[in-house]
């Protein structure tokens, strides 16, 4: 999921003289972006300040802002859905604190000698409370809840903004010299408690914000690679590459906010991995600064047989070993043609069978996702008011055709959304192949529009949690990967487990417990769950929520699913690491950590 663009939430103490060339460069960029961006992002919720779900004066749901296709539209059926699904009522509202109370914030404790050394490096920094709180969390439910209603026990003492690899080297050296703790911070979109500061950390905690390292250093058109500084945010990277006619094709749902370095550190996965690959397929070279020194390779080649690939110590290291500063990544020419699509299946079982067949024939489009019935209905509830009677008539006709003529039960059917990319001709050919397979499994093509809306929703859905929080509804998403033959069992059991746990824990309304198969592989699939419930009448909702989330994870593991497909482990899922990779496996990782960072400078306590 997401990562926040704190990128340009730059240093608020700009008292020092700026001399170096790179600093001037930043000044130029910040000059045009700093204040602007600071207003851009919510301090206690997801995404842009101007984009959110609200209930307007007529009591109808509406999505504000102009950034998304849904922006400014009224969603007539959404209110009913939310009331029906959660038993929530618009009359019962919770209120978040309007702004951060600076007095609650733990004081910044930084030793003067270090500050002197830091000033000498000319790297900008801040001890401001808002800057520090902003980097003390990711986007787990409990973190947002704390922001709205409490305060973190431990937050970074100081934020630094290196602007280039050399800056990072200096900071790491200083941290080693003074024995301080560094927590690297990219987009801030972690959903694994990875950014939370360990409460028991006594040393000064430096939040190393990579957002100012956001240049594309070079593009190599012959080899189709680009060397990029790790702090760059996904959408900026794509935008800037597009200027030269290229793309990386790496599009995690959080790509608006998450950073390249973050992707590497968590083993991220992109929506269009079927064409472009996941981060581990995309990366050609990584440069990382560790307390031991700099780790890199001698060449930038597609593959080498030189023992275990050291990139795989770095990818997924979650900030425990060092800071990724520069990444050489594969690029592709921007595709000529894109086409969305969707297919309706009579039930989830048939849908999964179809996806399995598509994966078997290795003809998966750039993206193929299958949402279950609950999510289909949810998507339906987010349908904006239609402009013309004709469209609504057409919708009615479609519905009639699907439900009455084809005999689909609207309470059972499910939908696959598709995204094709490439040459126009090949796309059309590809499309036909996939639809032919779908037909064999009882699928019915359901139009481009439905597909496109489906993908748009994945960006918007993250905003919904903030709305829910206002009305006693809390929710979260989690994911796993699972072999094909267990997909159905896992989906059914995990959803059922959530429902039961809620019941047992005294949740008064049945929760929303829904899933989608979101990625396909040769040997299995990635499954994504959404889970939300109305917590009225529960005294400690976060605790209850965490118990249920844990039970759901246990269920996933018991069903042969993985601990995580792409969110990572962080501190949230650490307890299951041992059974996930065995004692010896954990020991292997530990020994790498011990060698690279014997004094635990990168002390965010993730993973191990």
């Amino acid at each position, binding site marked *: 999921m997401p990562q926040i663009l704190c990128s340009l939430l730059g240093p608020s103490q700009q008292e020092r003289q700026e001399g170096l060339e790179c600093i001037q460069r930043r000044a130029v960029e910040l000059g045009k972006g700093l204040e602007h961006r600071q207003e851009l992002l919510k301090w206690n919720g997801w995404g842009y300040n101007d984009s959110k779900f609200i209930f307007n004066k007529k009591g109808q749901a509406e999505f504000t802002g102009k950034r998304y296709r849904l922006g400014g539209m009224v969603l007539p059926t959404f209110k009913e859905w939310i009331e029906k699904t959660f038993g929530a009522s618009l009359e019962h509202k919770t209120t978040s604190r309007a702004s951060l109370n600076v007095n609650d914030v733990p004081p910044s404790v930084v030793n003067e000698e270090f500050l002197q050394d830091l000033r000498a490096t000319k790297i900008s920094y801040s001890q401001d409370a808002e800057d520090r709180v902003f980097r003390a969390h990711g986007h787990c439910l409990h973190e947002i809840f704390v922001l709205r209603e409490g305060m973190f026990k431990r937050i970074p003492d100081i934020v630094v903004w290196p602007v280039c690899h050399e800056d990072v080297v200096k900071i790491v050296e200083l941290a080693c010299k003074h024995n301080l703790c560094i927590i690297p911070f990219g987009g801030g979109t972690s959903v694994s408690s990875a950014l939370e500061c360990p409460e028991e950390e006594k040393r000064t905690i430096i939040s190393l914000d990579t957002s100012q390292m956001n240049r594309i250093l070079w593009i190599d058109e012959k080899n189709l690679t680009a060397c990029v500084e790790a702090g760059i945010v996904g959408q900026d990277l794509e935008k800037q590459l597009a200027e030269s006619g290229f793309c990386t094709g790496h599009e995690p749902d959080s790509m608006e906010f998450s950073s390249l370095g973050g992707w590497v550190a968590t083993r991220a996965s992109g929506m269009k991995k079927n064409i472009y690959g996941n981060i581990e397929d995309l990366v050609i070279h990584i440069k990382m600064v560790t307390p031991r020194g700099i780790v890199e390779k001698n060449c930038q080649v597609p593959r080498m047989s030189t023992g275990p690939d050291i990139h795989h110590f770095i990818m997924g290291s979650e900030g425990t070993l060092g800071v990724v500063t520069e990444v050489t990544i594969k690029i592709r020419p921007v595709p000529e043609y894109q086409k969305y699509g969707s297919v309706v299946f009579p039930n989830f079982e048939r849908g999964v069978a179809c996806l399995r067949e598509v994966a078997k024939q290795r003809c998966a489009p750039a993206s193929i996702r299958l949402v279950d019935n609950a999510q289909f209905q949810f998507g339906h509830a987010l349908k904006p008011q239609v402009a013309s009677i004709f469209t609504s008539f057409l919708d009615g006709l479609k519905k009639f055709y699907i439900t009455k003529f084809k005999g689909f039960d609207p309470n059972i059917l499910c939908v696959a959304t598709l995204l094709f990319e490439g040459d126009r001709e090949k796309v059309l050919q590809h499309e036909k192949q996939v639809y032919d397979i779908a037909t064999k499994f009882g699928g019915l093509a359901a139009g481009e529009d439905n597909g496109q809306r489906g993908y748009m929703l994945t960006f918007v859905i993250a905003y919904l949690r903030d709305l829910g929080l206002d009305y006693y509804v809390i929710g979260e998403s989690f994911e796993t990967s699972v072999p094909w033959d*267990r997909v159905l069992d896992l989906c*059914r059991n995990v959803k*059922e487990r959530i429902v039961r746990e809620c019941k047992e824990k005294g949740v008064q309304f049945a929760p929303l417990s829904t899933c989608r198969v979101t990625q396909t592989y040769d040997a299995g699939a990635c499954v994504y769950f959404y889970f939300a419930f109305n917590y009225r009448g529960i005294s400690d909702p976060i605790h209850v929520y965490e118990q249920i989330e844990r039970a759901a994870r246990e269920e996933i*593991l018991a069903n042969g699913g993985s601990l995580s497909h792409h969110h990572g482990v962080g501190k949230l899922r650490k307890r299951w690491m041992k059974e996930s990779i065995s004692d010896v496996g954990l020991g292997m990782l530990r020994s790498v950590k011990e060698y690279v960072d014997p004094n635990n400078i990168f002390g965010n306590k993730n993973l191990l």
Partner: protein
Amino acid sequence: MAAAAARGRARRGAPMYSQKELTSKKRDEFEDILEERRLSSDLRYAMKCYTPVIYKGLSPCKPNAIKSAVLQSEQVQYVIKQLAKEMGESPDIIQEEATEILDEMGHRMQLGAVRFFAFTLSKIFKQLFQRVCVNEEGMQRLQHAIQEHPVVLLPSHRSYVDFLMLSYLLYTYDLALPVIAAGIDFLGMKIVGELLRRAGAFFMRRSFGGNRLYWAVFAEYVKTMLRNGYAPIEFFLEGTRSRTAKTLTPKFGLLSIVMEPFFKREVFDTYLVPISISYERILEESLYAYELLGVPKPKESTSGLLKARRILSDNFGTIHIYVGQPVSLRTLASGRINRCPYNLVPRHLPQKPSEDIQEFVSDVAYKMELLQIENMVLSPWVLVAAVLLQNLPAMEFELLIEKTLWLKGLTQTFGGFIEWPDNLCAKKAVLSGLALHSNIARLADGHVVLSDKGVDDGAVGEVVFRHALAVLTCATYRNQLLNVCVRPGLVAVTLHMAPSFRKEEVYSCFSFLRDVFSDEFIFFPGISLKDFEEGCFLLTKCDAIQMSQQEIYPTDRGSATVSFLSAMFRPFVEGYQLIFRYLSKEMKEAFTEKQFIPGVRNFVFQLLEKGSTQCYEALSSDMQKNALSALVQLGAVKKKKMPNGFTYHVNQEAVSKILDMFDDSADAIPEHNEFLFPEYEILIEPEEPEPDSADDEQEAEDTSKDVKEQEELGAAGIADKAFQSLDEETLEAMAKHETEEEKIFQMFKKQVAAEPEQIVRYCRGGEGPLWVSGENRPEEKDIPNCVCGAKRIFEFQIMPQLLNHLQVDSLGESIDWGTLVVYTCADSCGGGNEYLEEFIWKQDYSMGSAL
């Protein structure tokens, strides 16, 4: 002053059973389902609209579709391919074979057959039974369960009527008919077999251990039914009908098959429903007795069943069916089973269950049987039979009534579920029992005697056989009581057997018996101590025994209870002894079970003819088999698999050793070995501060006043009474002499009295130790400095109470002390892991103060 002295209390294990009130356990009410049948048309009932509730999301499926799904399943196909490869045959041939197996096995449930059964069974049941009582709440729970998760019905098995009755019951309550795993011998009954099949029975061969194809097809068939929730699966944990009415030890094969879909997470959960079916009079009772005595059992055949029509004219009383609480397998497994035992292998590959899982399956099986036992209804006749068997050949009627009533109370204390109609006087209850069971016992001249017809005439052998038949039939009813009483019962037996009343010896003897009888009665595996404690608890509850710190002994009032219970289990103790004796004397060579049973039967028969034993129950082949398998488990007999079955080899020495334990368990089980002391847990608690010394004196005065008073009372001529009420302390005070020595010992006693079980007092650097005597106290120079040069200071002292727990008190040889005082370095030198030498001072009781 507030020195924190450590008080140690030694104990062995914690009592595992809370003081639960077993008798007040809530059980559902019963409802007679035959009542309505007697009032309305059976035909209409059979033709009623039958729309059972089904498992969620289920699309109904024809039996043939199920069969082909099974054949095409990955699991079966995998085994077919494997076998084809191994045997070099074409897969088609093996596939053919699998189809045949499936045809032989599968059910062909048809509503017509079900309706036919409903009609006929109504007629038959009304003829046979007075009432068929069902707990309706249980049926409602079952109805919910069926809609929620796949359900496995686990009824007890006493009669063929069991599964007919259960299907009939589910039909009556408009629930999906179960598919029943029935033994294949039914197939011999041509018409009935086919009818049963159409009513939903499927058949399994009794043994198919070696046949992989059969196993694969069978397992997949069961799992397909279960996974899709087509119908509840029903089978008998006991594997076969219990001929003795005693619950048989469970079989695990089918249970582990039905549990597998859950382990593999193919289903979210599975409900196991224990069902207890109790018969006031068992249809096959005399047949069973013949069978146990080795008269061959008639093969199930249709003509046999037709002959059985004779019994239609007979009365078989009431049936009670108690449908237990559905038990969620998921709940049972939570925390028990490693989460992902099947994650690393494709789920369709046949895989031997891990040891964890095997153990779990076994635990679940026992748990289910214990739940069955808990809800088995005991009729008054069961109590009568238990009393009567202890008072053969004849018992005065009035006495029988009195004893029966007494036993009723005892059984209820033990948690037995007695169905004794309110206000029914004991006499009527016994009389109606006698009326129903006139074939077993009858009233003659105010005495109740066994109905062993023609005992007086005929050859000796004939007499013995007739009597054995009567005893075994009667025992069938007493047996229903055994599993309820087995824990307190074995404690009672033990109290007669164990060489002393010392707790450890009683327990080890109990534990031995529990092992020996592990096939005879149902014990949850591995909780011997818990069973023992429950037994003791129940006996304490009915005032039969008393327990002190070290001993368990029968009370005066309770000796009747202990003797009764002990006598109830005596046939087993004696029977096993006879069988063991036979094995240790007669069986030198390897033998098979087929040789063993007649051999031991003849052996016992001869003893009975000679009159040198009265243990008729040793003739029971059930007991003989159980005894043999107990020996196998105890390692005294080796069981070997041979091509034509199992053979057994007796280890003579081991068997005689076991026999010795029965005969004389005095030198039986070593308490602990000679080198290690027994293990205990030490509890640490701070000591309460001492009361003020002023109060102390006050108290001392008060005491002396009391003493005076008591002396006066004594003088007044009621000395006996007064002396009884004098406790040790007062006596002490009476004998008080004002010596220095005395004072110290008194202090010691006073301090210790607050917490008499303490074994260690810990107070590092605080006040000195608590001396037992004024003599032999160390002075400062007596205590050497530590190796590091620092002074040694008092750290803790070991109290004489510890001696009680070490069990080394053979006088003259063993160690003894007043107190042991340990002094350690004041600087706590040596922070490492090495041992350091410390200083210990041993003080004995002074001669003057020793008691």
